[in-house]
């Protein structure tokens, strides 16, 4: 077994037993990146020198057995949406192509404090707007299982880097499925925690009331380890939840006897890929065999989720992205006649078409005379969607659905029709609107050997049950052990 194929917990054992140093491991991954990233294109920036420095620091700790966490010396990558002090942070946008933050995102700081080694910054859809990384201002990331296909998005670079074994794990952000959908399409584990569980400070905002950071890993155990390091109250984020953080690895007991799993009929619809449907139904049977009971639940407002999402998220985005005006940092267009001209040229030039489309949509939905019909109505329906989940969770402990309606699609296949692209997130969006936790774990392959994701949704702040069910399923199968042949 190649080192780079191993999980965090496997590598941690080796580091702890001194079979391996973090420096060796880091160099192994950097070589792996050199070898395959020309093909996969998962990284915008590779932070080679910093990584080696961090690895040496970690080795000191490992040598002295001091302050060791399960992440000490583990090489990871991070989505280029997280601000990293002194390291270019672009959000895959031309408008931030030269932006070097003077601060670390809270999550970055926590991971660094835990001893993780950061290898680089992953490609993504510009400002996290997209489902394929085709909206990156720089290049499209390839799916390690089939390089003619997209890795999903927006955290496509993170997902591909994990699936291509360019790092032990990665972190992404999820506004409408941007962790779970690429995790599904790349055959890895991706968790979106409860809104407020992980601080948003220093994570470049797309839609503030929906954005949440989370881990993207090779298995469920790694996911729990990463979440342990990332979760927690942050006084810098007014929306972060001040609740104790459990040790999520303790939830990994395989014991699902008596747990109630809800299956919402609204998620098994026409247009759902037949192989995906089969795999998900098979997963339900696996859990049943382990002693879980399965019941039907209904989430009646599901059909409005995509519409609500594209009003709420774009409205917030239109405001969040106003700061990119060429005045203070980032790209500024040259040769402007006056202030308005400078704004217009900078933003026309600096933003890609999908970002502009969403800024326009959001501006429109907030405009005088339209606010009530669009933004306000969408906010009201959002409350109904949230209530759907509250009602459903009175009857069950978790809800099980497919993560995405289709497996990885061909690069260029959906770019001409934004609406078709938006439907890639049809199963993941409601979870963000409701603020609940959701995970995608591997549950099989299509006949074309493309990974399939199983989504498990939980009650607010009940990541433990989500992880418990995921772990039970994972341990009964071996999908997570499959590696893409890059």
């Amino acid at each position, binding site marked *: 077994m190649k080192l780079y194929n191993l999980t965090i917990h496997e590598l941690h054992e080796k580091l702890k037993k001194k079979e391996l140093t973090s420096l060796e491991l880091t160099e192994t991954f950097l070589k792996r990146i050199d070898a395959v990233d020309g093909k996969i294109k998962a990284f915008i920036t590779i932070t080679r020198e910093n990584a080696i420095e961090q690895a040496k620091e970690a080795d000191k700790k490992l040598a002295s057995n001091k302050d060791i966490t399960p992440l000490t010396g583990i090489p990871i990558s991070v989505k280029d949406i997280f601000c990293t002090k002194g390291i270019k942070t672009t959000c895959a946008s031309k408008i931030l192509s030269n932006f070097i933050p003077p601060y670390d995102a809270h999550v970055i700081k926590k991971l660094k404090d835990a001893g993780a080694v950061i290898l680089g910054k992953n490609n993504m859809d510009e400002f996290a707007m997209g489902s394929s990384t085709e909206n990156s201002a720089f290049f499209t990331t390839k799916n390690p299982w089939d390089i003619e296909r997209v890795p999903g998005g927006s955290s496509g670079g993170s997902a591909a880097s994990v699936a291509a074994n360019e790092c032990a794990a990665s972190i992404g952000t999820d506004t409408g499925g941007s962790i779970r959908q690429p995790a599904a399409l790349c055959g890895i584990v991706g968790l979106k925690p409860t809104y407020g569980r992980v601080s948003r400070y*220093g994570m470049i905002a797309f839609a503030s009331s929906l954005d949440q950071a989370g881990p993207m890993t090779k298995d469920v155990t790694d996911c729990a380890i990463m979440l342990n390091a990332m979760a927690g109250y942050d006084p810098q984020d007014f*929306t972060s939840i001040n609740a104790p953080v459990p040790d999520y690895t303790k939830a990994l007991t395989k014991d699902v006897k008596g747990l109630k799993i809800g299956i919402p009929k609204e998620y098994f619809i026409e247009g759902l890929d037949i192989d995906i449907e089969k795999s998900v139904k098979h997963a339900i049977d696996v859990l049943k065999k382990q002693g879980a009971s399965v019941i039907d639940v209904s989430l009646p407002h599901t059909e409005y989720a995509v519409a609500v999402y594209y009003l709420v998220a774009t409205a917030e985005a239109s405001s969040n992205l106003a700061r990119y005006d060429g005045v203070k940092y980032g790209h500024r267009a040259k040769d402007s006649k006056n202030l308005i001209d400078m704004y217009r040229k900078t933003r026309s030039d600096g933003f890609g078409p999908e970002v502009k489309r969403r800024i326009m949509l959001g501006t429109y939905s907030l405009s005088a005379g339209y606010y009530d019909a669009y933004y306000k109505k969408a906010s009201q329906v959002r409350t109904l969607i949230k209530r759907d989940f509250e009602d459903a969770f009175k009857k069950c402990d978790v809800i099980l659905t497919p993560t995405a309606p289709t497996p990885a699609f061909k690069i260029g296949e959906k770019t001409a029709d934004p609406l078709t692209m938006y439907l890639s997130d049809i199963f993941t969006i409601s979870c963000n609107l409701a603020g609940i936790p959701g995970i995608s774990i591997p549950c099989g392959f299509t006949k074309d050997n493309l990974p399939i994701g199983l989504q498990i949704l939980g009650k607010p702040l009940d990541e433990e049950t989500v992880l418990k069910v995921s772990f039970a399923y994972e341990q009964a199968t071996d999908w997570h052990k499959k590696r893409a042949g890059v």
Partner: protein
Amino acid sequence: MSYEAVIGLEIHAQLLTNSKMFCGCSTKFGAEPNTQVCPVCLGMPGVLPVLNKKAVEFAIKMALATNCAINPKSIFARKNYFYPDLPKGYQISQYDEPLTKKGFIDVDVNDSKKRIGITRIHMEEDAGKLLHGETNEDINYSFVDLNRAAVPLIEIVSEPDMRTSDEAVEYLKALRDILVYLEICDGNMEEGSFRCDANVSVRKIGQKELGTKTELKNINSFRFIQKAIEYEIKRQIDVLEDNGKIIQETRLFDSDKGITISMRSKEEAHDYRYFPEPDLLPLEIDAKWIEEIKKNLPELPAAKRERFVKGYGIPQYDAGVLTSSKALANYYEKCVQAYRGQGVKGGYPSEGWVGGQEIPKVVSNWVMGELLRLLKEDGKDINQPSVFGLQPESFAKLLKMIDEGTISNKIAKDVFEEMFKTGKDPDAIVKEKGLVQISDESAIIKAIDDVLNANQQSAADYKAGKEKLFSFFVGQVMKATKGQANPALLNKLLKEKLSR
């Protein structure tokens, strides 16, 4: 046809918190540009606002002082517009669910009370400042200073309850006094920590519906407020009299010309696309906290004024002047107390009366007259501690010296000026300069004799009935005694001499 004006004011008051509204940066005025900034107030990517509790407390104080009920839950909203002094491209403000419900204050206008309604008070952040290049090399540049960005403000919106510019000015002054008394705003219009926009319309007397209003901006002194409103009222009446129509618009006041100029019409008005700020949870205010703040509210200007009138028996006018600043009012009270504590020979003035006036009125005369005159001449502010080199105890001592006839009222004024400038004790000044009043009858009689001898013709004229000349002789004797003759004694002795 006669018209009446309808005026409403929107006031922005910068709160005197040490740190900004959503980050820990200092709010101090006058620092080098962009030295009081951090990623949060610079609007860098990914940063988030954290609400300053002190700012909320200050806003609640103002709400309580203006009889506004506080909403247990209020919502911050984003006001979206592009401008280089607005780093995030939106201002965090409050919109349809502000901090307070309606309230009011009572103001005195031309000796009668008028109640002005307050529609709402809400919290928001200030913007930065733009400086435009002036020299040859930077004439094409504008510079952005974000030190002021995100300094906390409250906006106080009045009902359209004012009918004259006098009422508007009195309301504005009263609000400023309250803010300063509460020590939550320094009330400085010139530095922009207290700003006012005025909504003005006119209608025919008797008409119920409001006329079309204009919004006046860029008014940075009380005098300009008065001028801008008066100009605008006249302009609107002229337009209507010419059968014209008032256009709803924003107008800028040009203080050099004393006129208002159209800035933008309603059609050009911004659509701010307000929506709830997703980075801040709804602001929930505990009733207990409000009670606590209420308990610790200081005495407000109106209450103090009333207490001065009732407690000290001074006229309404005096009370108004003395309470115009909290520091002045405190100083006045200390002086009265010190004076009362002195005790004077012959029972005066511990029985309460000096020269036919009560102690508080005597002190009031001196504070309003001499102290305020000297403060003004020296451009000093009573709030500056340097003024308090003039101790209330010394002040009382000076007044006592007048009572006891040690110095005359006139000389006391000179001594006071010296005290004001040097902070010295009146005793020392009087001794140093030999200013002690002459109450020795023989010395005064000698001076009178000298004067009458030198002016025999005038003395004869007086005796022949030209009584006006009396003051001439007083003046001459005073001159001869360098103003140190006891005036009462001089009057008495001179009358005796001349009647012989």
